[in-house]
């Protein structure tokens, strides 16, 4: 371990990073996950590997109250991975288990680290397209948030970045390219966008359309409906990203059509649902706009268009390639809200189906419009999974 030198004389508890643990769990490795958070935290937000993981829940304060009885609950001879909210309590428990002769490791940073972890997944492209660009779907597993990196030649755009902006800078630099523009599909309500900070750090244009009723407090380089952005630079290859205004989830919601075949829809259309139009207090107006977008604006696009959304509802929505995507023709047939024939029936359906709003969504919207907030507050608001779809069709395994 290349960690900072130990300041205390206490023995080191083995640690495992979220980025190393998740692929092991995804492969189905037989570890025992010991979750030591309190009951509420455990019930409301769990790690979701691609395969089920055996999980035991014993709160850390039980270990403090009665170490012996709590340790006795842990089966012997297993590899135990201990998880808590921030990594402190799990470190204590992992240490107790180690002392009791049970092989255990602490998940570094706990659920906070899980909520921040980004997994890049390369979207498979046909050979002709792959020669001109790379499309990466960046999966923020802990929040089921998806952002995108499009690289063509020496230029890249980032769409809907999470707030760990250094990650995107490093990722694009590794591909030998530079970020020339940062785009947000909409003013997010469930997580704080990294868009403005990323654009500022690189001195490149940032785009988001807030729409009627919202006051943006930060500089934006506007893009018109139908406008195209060309990527490639002086390398001889290039692609176009077309701007499509797709209001409904928010009045400013925008989709980006990459190379005429990949539609980054934001929260307009997911692979199993549509975006909820109720987060601004204008559910009828926004609901009608969303219906119009789905039925008319997107009607011109070929069925072969691949939809790549900003969220997913559960691991059942992740394809065999590891990508959350769907053919537009399939989604027109399978997404329940896409089957509704009239705008009024659509609005009634999405109104009836919506769940609790995302935690602190009003505050998060203000920050994404440009208001300041402390890292501590943002971290607290962002805990938990997204609630951005109008309906939660129970996805397999979710």
């Amino acid at each position, binding site marked *: 371990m290349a960690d900072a030198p130990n300041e205390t004389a206490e023995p080191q508890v083995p640690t495992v990073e979220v980025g190393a643990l998740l692929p092991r769990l995804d492969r189905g490795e037989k570890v025992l996950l010991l979750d030591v958070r*309190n009951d509420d935290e455990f019930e409301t937000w769990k790690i979701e590997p691609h395969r089920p993981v055996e999980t035991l829940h014993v*709160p850390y*304060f039980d270990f*403090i*109250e009665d170490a012996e009885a709590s340790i006795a609950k842990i089966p012997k001879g297993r590899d135990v991975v201990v998880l808590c*909210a*921030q990594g*402190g309590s799990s470190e204590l428990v992992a240490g107790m288990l180690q002392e009791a002769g049970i092989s255990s490791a602490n998940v570094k940073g706990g659920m906070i680290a899980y909520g921040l972890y980004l997994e890049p997944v390369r979207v498979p492209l046909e050979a002709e397209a792959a020669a001109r660009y790379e499309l990466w779907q960046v999966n923020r597993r802990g929040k089921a948030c998806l952002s995108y990196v499009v690289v063509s030649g020496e230029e890249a755009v980032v769409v809907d970045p999470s707030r760990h902006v250094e990650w995107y800078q490093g990722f694009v630099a590794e591909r030998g390219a530079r970020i020339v523009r940062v785009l947000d599909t909409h003013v997010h309500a469930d997580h704080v966008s990294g868009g403005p900070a990323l654009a500022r750090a690189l001195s490149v244009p940032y785009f988001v359309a807030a729409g009627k009723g919202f006051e943006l407090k930060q500089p934006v380089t506007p893009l018109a409906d139908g406008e195209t952005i060309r990527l490639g630079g002086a390398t001889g290859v290039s692609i176009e990203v077309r701007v499509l205004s797709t209001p409904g989830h928010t009045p400013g919601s925008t989709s980006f059509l990459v190379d005429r075949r990949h539609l980054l829809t934001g929260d307009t259309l997911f692979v199993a649902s549509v975006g909820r139009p109720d987060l601004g207090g204008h559910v009828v107006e926004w609901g009608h706009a969303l219906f119009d977008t789905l039925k008319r604006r997107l009607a011109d696009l070929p069925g072969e268009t691949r939809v790549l959304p900003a969220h997913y509802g559960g691991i059942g929505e992740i394809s065999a390639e590891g990508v959350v995507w769907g053919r537009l023709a399939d989604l027109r047939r399978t997404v329940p809200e896409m089957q509704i024939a009239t705008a009024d029936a659509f609005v009634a359906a999405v109104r009836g189906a919506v769940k609790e709003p995302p935690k602190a969504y009003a505050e998060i919207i203000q920050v994404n419009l440009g208001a300041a907030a402390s890292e501590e507050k943002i971290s607290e608001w962002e805990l938990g999974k997204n609630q951005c779809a109008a309906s939660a069709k129970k996805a397999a395994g979710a």
Partner: protein
Amino acid sequence: MALKKLDVRGAKCPIPIVKAKKEMDTMAPGDQLEVTSTDPGSVPDFQGWVKTAKHALLKEQRMEKDEAGKDLYIHLLERT
């Protein structure tokens, strides 16, 4: 009956409960301990702990602000 105070401002879990338990172990039945924490997570955690704690009752939880306006979470425990 004595009232002791424990200041765990700035500490995150598991420290507030580790320290509270240690302190409570030295106290006599009926004595009270007032814990001042800045960690919002301490609120459900103290509630959870006293469910299984053999010698601790949670008498009261309240929120206050410090001089800088920062939220404080105050837990009043009683040794049983």
